């Protein structure tokens, strides 16, 4: 009897052990269609800066508020269907938000809808609405000629694409030049298509060349608008040491129009050639801590005098001349909503994956320092991805700055958000 029990025990132990490492790989066989659905819930709580100029502008003749809550939910569907050498991809998103002032907003977007044809491993063609992201910078990518600029509050977020035609030629070689690619892109702009890509109707041709030379990524970019040169740029990235990466971006652009306020509260426009650049580094320390440091120069950004003039214009409009309000509000929505309003910034971020052996937990802190007016935004993030297909994120940011400074005059002085993301 004892022997039977022992045998049964051994058999059951063996089956558990075999089960422990089972791998049914057939369930991962290729199917012609694939899809995933991404569901997100994100409540945000914002502490308003009641002494700021932007608060006085946005709450003019409105009920005063100390906090601003918004509750956001989104459902994103990403799918594809493959047929022979062709693949059709779709990425659509519906975003619902509810704010403190009882405003419901529903926004539906097609992020991507394109067809891809692989003629060979060297040649491929993509036609449709596609998100294209270029550049080596973490916080800013001036070379991203075909993409939208990323949101500094959510750097890794997916972005809506543009309608375009993109051809890719890639070739691997042996020697100093390890591989290269040539990517011409056409982006047409009409009244109804890509209207937020460029002002007015235009035909835009962008050429991107990539080279991997002696373990260094090097890219060149050219932007032609209606057969006229508009922008040129390049970037590079390289590991100086296995755990130390350096990168840089540079863009020259012709006739960039900057709208700014003079001391008589009139908006002036100037057109200048600009030189935007960014250089940075990413270091991985032995403790597994990653440090990212970047300096960026936004040549078309405002200087401290132009910023002060705008804030003075708000104060004048709110306190003395309400007729000026629509002009100030229009300027805010059209010219004051960029991610980097002034010229020079320093960004640093430290992240530490799995501290104290807490698997799938990554805390990080960052600072974005405006060198021109010494104002700053400090924030952090706690990311936890322990549960399958569920990602939890807690984010906070605090803004500091003197009167008439960028972060000192923002509508908020702090924000916390919680994100729950489930993929199925």
């Amino acid at each position: 009897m004892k022997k039977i029990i022992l045998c049964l025990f051994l058999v059951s132990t063996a089956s558990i052990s075999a089960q422990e490492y089972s791998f049914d790989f057939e369930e991962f066989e290729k199917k012609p269609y694939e899809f995933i659905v991404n569901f997100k819930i994100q409540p945000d709580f914002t502490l308003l800066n009641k002494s700021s100029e932007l608060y006085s502008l946005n709450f003019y003749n409105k009920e005063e508020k100390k906090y601003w809550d918004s509750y956001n939910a989104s459902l994103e569907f990403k799918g594809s269907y493959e047929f022979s050498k062709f693949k059709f991809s779709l990425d659509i998103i519906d975003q619902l938000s509810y704010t403190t002032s009882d405003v419901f907003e529903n926004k539906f977007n097609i992020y991507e809808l394109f067809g891809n044809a692989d003629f060979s491993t060297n040649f491929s063609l993509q036609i449709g609405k596609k998100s294209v992201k270029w550049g080596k910078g973490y916080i800013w990518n001036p070379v991203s000629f075909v993409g939208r600029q990323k949101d500094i509050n959510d750097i890794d977020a997916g972005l809506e694409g543009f309608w375009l035609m993109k051809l890719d030629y890639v070739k691997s070689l042996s020697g100093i030049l390890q591989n290269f690619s040539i990517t011409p892109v056409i982006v047409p702009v009409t009244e109804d298509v890509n209207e937020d890509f460029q002002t007015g109707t235009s035909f835009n041709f962008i050429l991107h060349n990539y080279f991997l030379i002696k373990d260094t990524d090097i890219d060149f970019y050219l932007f032609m608008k209606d057969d006229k040169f508009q922008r040129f740029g390049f970037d590079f990235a390289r590991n100086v040491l296995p755990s130390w990466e350096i990168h840089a971006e540079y863009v020259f652009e012709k006739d960039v129009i900057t709208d700014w306020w003079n001391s008589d509260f009139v908006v002036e426009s100037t057109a200048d050639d600009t030189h935007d650049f960014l250089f940075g580094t990413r270091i991985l320390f032995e403790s597994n801590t990653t440090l990212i440091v970047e300096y960026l120069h936004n040549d078309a950004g405002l200087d401290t005098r132009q910023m002060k003039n705008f804030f003075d214009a708000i104060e004048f409009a709110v306190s003395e001349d309400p007729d000026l309000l629509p002009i100030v509000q229009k300027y805010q929505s059209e010219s004051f909503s960029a991610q980097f309003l002034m010229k020079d910034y320093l960004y640093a971020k430290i992240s530490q994956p799995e501290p104290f052996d807490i698997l799938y937990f990554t805390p990080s802190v960052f600072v974005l320092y405006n060198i021109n007016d010494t104002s700053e935004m400090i924030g952090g993030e706690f990311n936890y991805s322990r549960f399958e297909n569920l990602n939890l994120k807690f984010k906070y940011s605090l803004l500091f700055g003197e009167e008439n400074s960028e972060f000192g005059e923002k509508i908020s002085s702090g924000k916390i958000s919680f994100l729950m993301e489930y993929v199925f």
Partner: protein
Amino acid sequence: MLNKTRISKKLIFSIVILTISFSSLFSEEAVEAGNKLLKEIDRNLTPESFESLKKIINIEPDGKEKEFVLYVLKKGNDKMVTTFLAPKSEIGRSTLRLDENMWLYIPNVGRPMRITSLQSVIGGIFNNSDIMQLDYSAEYDVIEMTDENNEKLLNLKAKTTSVAYDQLKMWVNTNHKTPSKIECYTASGMLIKTLHFKEIKDFGNGIIRPSVLETDSPLHKDYKAVMIYANIKPRKIDDEVFTLNYMDKIIDLRE
């Protein structure tokens, strides 16, 4: 008397020189044989150009598990690309290794960025170098080979400082000429992790190798990670697949 002493001194000196010469000759031969064995081990583990699937299981001290499934393509000594097939939240996340260069592509981020071999794209004990292991003979030289308990013990030294582990001790199953255990050390001699190769399996096409790789680390006590290999198949792959342009299309290359 004086002559005898001189003769015996000369004799001892000659014996010492001869012993050193023979032992160095012998150790050189052993090292050469060790490097040859290491190349055989590489070919027994994987064909020169192949595709495969890997399941990685991170096991926490309380027994909780998280699983990842990767599709892997490798060519030659220096080219490898992987992409996640599971869990759903990671699908499309790809890594590319070209010699000592490594890049990570995250679909939302939409552009490849450089990473290092010591980071981990999945968390846990396996780092990028474990997940994207190239041929051992491409990264290491055998500096010593000895016999130990019916196995060969190879002491390996990294060819460059960019390799994740400076030294390896590899115990080799002499029947199948595949590793049974590997200890990974830093340059200062600190043990970082131990890899245990288990469950020898016939994958077809002459590939007979361990199908399970278990790892533990004194730096992460009571944590464990397991890598299970499946569907290892030789495959002709164009070099262009191992470029940044292809990182968002790796998932489509499954046959």
